[in-house]
């Protein structure tokens, strides 16, 4: 369980990015965080793995206060895939990149192999394994970065803007990946600007605005609350927008619901 308790964060230049946040994420949850840039989304998830330590309040990961241990210690539990894979990848092949953390943790050959195979399969990057990451197209390079974090087998995984630059296939792979990981007991937290991706794959959606959480609930709670949509500057999914214009009730968001209704 990740608990953020009354936590505030400010940058070294005294810019306050988060004000008194309260948030609890339980094991096995699928959580998407949405909202405008500058709302504090990235600052918030960086608190979960200790990169940002609150100046007020506490962040507790499985009973351990992030203030008491190094980032690397928390990172074994909370993996974080940055938006830009180029900030992470440094090995000469995709395989070496994915093997890096399991080897760093001095796991057995057998275990390393299993973890790599598993991560590669769910990220669908088998054909690029022995390629230099810089020759791999950018959207697929993002999957290499994700696979490398999956292979280190954290209990919680944070994906920052995974859908940016992905095509339909890439987005579908991501959707399946979220399901597979949560079925295996991992907790998946994502920051996303892709509202369709959020409603189709995440049970719980958190909208952030003005350095705080303004709504925490299901897709319907968020996207059928005009106030929240306005404040968080997000866009209502197309089917929801259509249903709203048609004046239909039932907080419709999905295609089949609308078909049934008509």
């Amino acid at each position: 369980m990740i608990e953020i308790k009354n936590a505030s964060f400010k940058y070294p230049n005294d810019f306050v990015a988060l004000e008194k946040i309260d948030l609890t994420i339980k094991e096995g949850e699928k959580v998407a965080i949405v909202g405008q840039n500058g709302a504090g989304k990235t600052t918030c998830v960086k608190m979960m793995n200790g990169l940002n330590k609150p100046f007020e309040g506490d962040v507790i990961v499985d009973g351990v206060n992030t203030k008491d241990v190094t980032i690397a210690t928390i990172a074994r539990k909370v993996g974080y895939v940055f938006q830009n894979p180029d900030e992470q990848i440094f090995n000469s092949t995709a395989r070496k990149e994915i093997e890096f953390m399991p080897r760093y943790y001095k796991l057995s050959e057998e275990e390393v192999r299993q973890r790599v195979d598993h991560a590669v399969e769910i990220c669908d990057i088998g054909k690029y394994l022995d390629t230099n990451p810089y020759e791999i197209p950018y959207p697929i390079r993002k999957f290499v970065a994700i696979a490398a974090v999956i292979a280190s087998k954290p209990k919680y995984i944070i994906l920052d803007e995974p859908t940016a630059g992905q095509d339909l296939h890439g987005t579908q792979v991501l959707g399946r990946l979220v399901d597979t990981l949560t079925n295996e007991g991992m907790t998946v937290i994502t920051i996303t600007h892709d509202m369709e991706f959020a409603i189709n794959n995440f049970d719980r959606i958190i909208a952030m605005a003005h350095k705080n959480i303004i709504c925490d609930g299901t897709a319907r709670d968020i996207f059928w609350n005009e106030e929240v949509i306005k404040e968080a500057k997000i866009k209502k999914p197309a089917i929801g927008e259509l249903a709203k214009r048609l004046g239909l009730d039932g907080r419709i968001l999905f295609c089949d619901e609308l078909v049934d209704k008509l």
Partner: protein
Amino acid sequence: MDKEFAYSFKDYVKYGNGFKDLNPISKLTISLCLGIASCVIHRWQFGIFLFFLGIILALYTRVFDRFIRSLLVIAIPLLLLTSIMRQLQYGHVEGNTPIFKIFGWQWYKEPFIASMDIAWYIIGFSSVLLIYFLNTEMKDLMLALENRGVTHVASYIMLSSMQSIIDMRKSANTILESQKARGIETDGNVIVRMKAFFPTLGPILLSAMSGTEEKAIAMDARAFSHDGGHTYLRVLRPIPVWEYVIDALAVLVLIGSIVYAIMSSMHAL
């Protein structure tokens, strides 16, 4: 939109300060002539003169804070080191004049003056160059050079590499964070730190390099290689006659210093 700002480009580049508004090349000529003169003369009196000239110009151009802070970093250790070294090396040479004692350690006049000459000529040289760089935008210098026939390709390479150093420093931070976030331990003894250092090096260099191809494409889209004549949004003030006069004076000081150096060495013989 700030129209006043937009229309300010109609005028020549202007900072509203007599020294700052000198042409970057004549400013460079003045600074280099005085700086080199300081090396040639090699006397503490001239060094101190340049130091005070630097202070006056720093006050006039409102960069005193940065000037004095950067200069003291060089000056204090330099003064201490050279004077101590000189006393240790040449202190008890026959015929030296004792001047004072520090905790029972006798200091002599001749090595002391020699050390002051060394320290102050460097301080004098640094003062004028520091004043130059604190008061000259790189882009103005490049613009002045372009006006004198340097190609805009050379100017671009110069200016963009300076920016890329700033960008690299920014990205280094994010890259370090990303490696920490993967679980690589960065706090601890030297070996732990070394282990953490390696994974950050690759991405820093590669991200700087992978950007260059795209940058080239972007610049090409901005007609960078177009050769039908180049115009400038920012235009430097045509150099007035009195500016040439100051330049000439600076050159004279340099020539004078060389003459002085030759004469005094002949005198010594």
